[in-house]
């Protein structure tokens, strides 16, 4: 794992969590699995992130019983979180389009 890769992922993790919660409320394990199916992450780091974003009032949490076992802590996106999500998505699109354009130009000239 290169340093660049690691630094990238941490910032993007925040975006991933917010995006996943936009559609519906989810519990921690579910969030971690959804993300780690797509990107290789150290799964434990999602929890510190969830705590931080909850304290920033981007999420609220509630406990819900599960049929299979102990109750699960669900995370719900707040209005403040949704505004932040849209801001991040905008930044991400701009950023990734810029990088993609550079890659395209670079490869065309080779």
């Amino acid at each position, binding site marked *: *794992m290169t*340093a660049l*890769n*690691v*630094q*990238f*992922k*941490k*910032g993007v*993790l*925040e975006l991933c969590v917010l995006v996943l919660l936009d559609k519906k409320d989810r*519990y*921690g*394990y579910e969030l*971690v699995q959804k993300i*780690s199916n797509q990107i*290789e*992450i*150290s*799964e*434990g*780091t999602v*929890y*510190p992130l*969830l*705590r*931080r974003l909850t*304290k920033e009032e981007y999420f609220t949490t509630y406990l819900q019983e599960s049929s*299979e*076992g*102990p109750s*699960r*802590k669900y995370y719900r996106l707040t209005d403040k979180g949704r505004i932040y999500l849209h801001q991040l998505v905008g930044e991400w699109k701009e950023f990734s389009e810029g990088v993609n354009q550079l890659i395209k130009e670079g490869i065309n000239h080779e």
Partner: protein
Amino acid sequence: MNKSQFLSEMERHLSRLSIDEKDDILQDYEEYFSIGIEEGKTETEIATSLGSPKQLAKELLANYHIEKMETTTTTRNMFRAVWAVIGLGFVNLVIVLGPFLVVLSLLLAGWITGVAGVLSPLLVIVNTIVNPDIFEWYDVFFSLAFCGIGLFILIGMYYASNSVKNVFLRYLKFNLSIVKGGTNHG
């Protein structure tokens, strides 16, 4: 490493936190273990995929100290937050400690200049008492001018210190989200 080893190591590294906070964190990881086990994973597999409890604890502590600095800024809280972020890895030592020391010394220099300016009439008085024969009126006028300038500098430094605090807080948070990331070897 099994579930109880993971949790007890994490608990040990989080001993600085309040009991409520610590329990809440441990409960999150306990929940993660129990759902993982329901899905047929072994405790060891889950512990490995979570990463090093020590590193996770460091990150949680850094979160905690920054948050504390936000609610009550004392010099002590600020230093703790800075140290906690530095503790996350070597890169942070360079990009956090460097700017922090530079900014801190600039602020200190500003405060000293202001205080010296404000106190300069006092120095003239002391000088006059000790050496009455070298008294010059222009010393008095200059020192009064310095006193005025010093007052302005102090007012300026007050606002500067406040905004520096806020900027630094944002910088620490930014570090938290960018630097130490993704996997446990970084």
